């Protein structure tokens, strides 16, 4: 389960030991997330009804935490950064990123897709390397300029 706080081998300090938590209505499901907003690392709980509607968000210490829990629960997204092959440049790899956060479930598939992309220098930062990645509507763009060199 993603979002769970990691526990040590020993189950000793470091990992939050899961406690019994609040009483939850029948058919409701509680998912926990570790908040990434600040070092506090709040253990957030999202309670969902049997109809998959969010009933309650608990455990946050600030509004950002609550927002994060809702986003992470309903539509978790990640900015994907990786590299693609580039020819004609000083180095053989071009760093790239998604122009906006991508649905989390597509991260690995995108990396697999990018393994077969090759671009030719010169490249400019922001240039689209892969448009509408995996039909997500999100572009993959170059993270930097790379000039053409003779050595490539």
């Amino acid at each position, binding site marked *: 389960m993603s979002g769970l706080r*990691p526990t040590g081998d020993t189950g000793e300090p*470091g990992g939050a030991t899961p406690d019994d938590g609040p009483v939850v209505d029948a058919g409701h499901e509680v998912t926990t997330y570790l908040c990434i907003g*600040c070092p506090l690392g709040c253990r957030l709980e999202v309670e969902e009804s049997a109809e998959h509607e969010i009933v309650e968000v608990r455990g946050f210490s600030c509004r950002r935490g609550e927002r994060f829990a809702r986003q992470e629960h309903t539509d978790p997204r*990640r900015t994907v950064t990786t590299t693609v092959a580039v020819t004609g440049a000083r180095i053989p790899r071009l760093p790239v990123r998604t122009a906006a956060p991508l649905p989390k479930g597509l991260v690995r598939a995108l990396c697999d897709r990018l393994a077969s992309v090759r671009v030719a220098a010169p490249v400019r930062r922001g240039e689209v390397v892969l448009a509408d990645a995996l039909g997500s509507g999100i572009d993959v763009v170059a993270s*930097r300029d790379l000039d053409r060199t003779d050595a490539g």
Partner: protein
Amino acid sequence: MSASRPARPRRVYDVAVVGAGPAGMAAAAGARQAGAERVLLVDREPETGGILNQCIHSGFGLHHFGEELTGPEFAQRAFAEMVDDGLDVLTDSFVVDRDADDELSVMSAEHGVLRVAAGAIVLASGARERTRGAIRIPGSRPAGVMTAGLAQHLVNVRGLLPGRRAVILGSGDIGLIMARRLTLEGIEVAGVFELLAHANGLTRNIVECLDDFDIPLHLSTTVVEVHGRDRVEGVTVAPVGPGLEPLLDRARFVPCDTVLLSIGLLPEAELARSLGARIDPVTRGPVVSSTMETTRPGVFAAGNSVHIHDLVDFVVEEAQLAGRSAAAHVLGGSAPRDNVTLVPGENVRYCVPHTISTDREHTVYLRVRRPLERSWLRLGDAYEKRLRYVVPAEMVTVKVRPRFLEGFSSEALRVDVVPREEG
């Protein structure tokens, strides 16, 4: 020197900045903005940007640029902010030392040995990674044990893979980020092992780099032996007891062909040391004043070469100050001398700068020794401030204003971070 030898070319600058990573670029920009006419920026790599060029992940620049950038994006934008006609950039060039004539000796393929006379120097040479020798991991010495940063370079810049199955020792941010990188490149990450009971990296990296990919983080666990004659064949890991001593009766073997070390960074302070600047035994970087001047007048320092930062934005802030101060040193008009020494007290590992002046505002960076959920930051008896949650992995930043210290008359100001009771 005999007359027949070829002369070493010589250049004169107001300010010379050593290292063109985020700190060096910000220092150079700061020096130019403060009026230094001729500024030199030197770096040993073939391009500016320093380590940012291999940090292809995002998360840089939220404070400085107001958006989340990848390392290369940050480097390129910082370069664009800095570059101007009064600035010379020398890449693929290495500052060896300062010679008897007080001139920097810079080696490069292009210029051979260049002598640089500068009115002020800013050291921005960044950090190096702690290595296996620093923690003396027992076992054999096969290929495949490397720092996380070297692996990052091989994967992100050179497009090579360090191995097929990796173990990561240490939960520093580079290690966590490399766990994700390796996974996305099809390398199995058998686990991240952390000696301490808490992770060293940012929570965000634990979630996004480990949990997202079901990579286990084993806290209070360490590598007790490396196996393999030619190439790594595995490691023995064991949980540690309260005194961090390995509990060998609970050791187990983890097969792998690669061990990445993410066990901390150390300021690259050799030039500061060779210039005679005093080194803080805790930070391992030079002692600096509130203008980022080392104990050698005219020699300034900033960024990871002074103390290890978590956020590049603070590096930039600190380095701009160093650059401005270097310019002021050359042009005249340096700030008044500091009159208060900061003394790390309870639960404070170090403070940077090491001294401040009560007549103006300062940003003081400090690191705590142990996590506290609620705490007071105390500056002697003069001032106290609530802190929310402090952990060693995240630097604490405090603005110290003159009014905080009104009526304070001693020369040493103790800085404590102590528990705060509820209420």
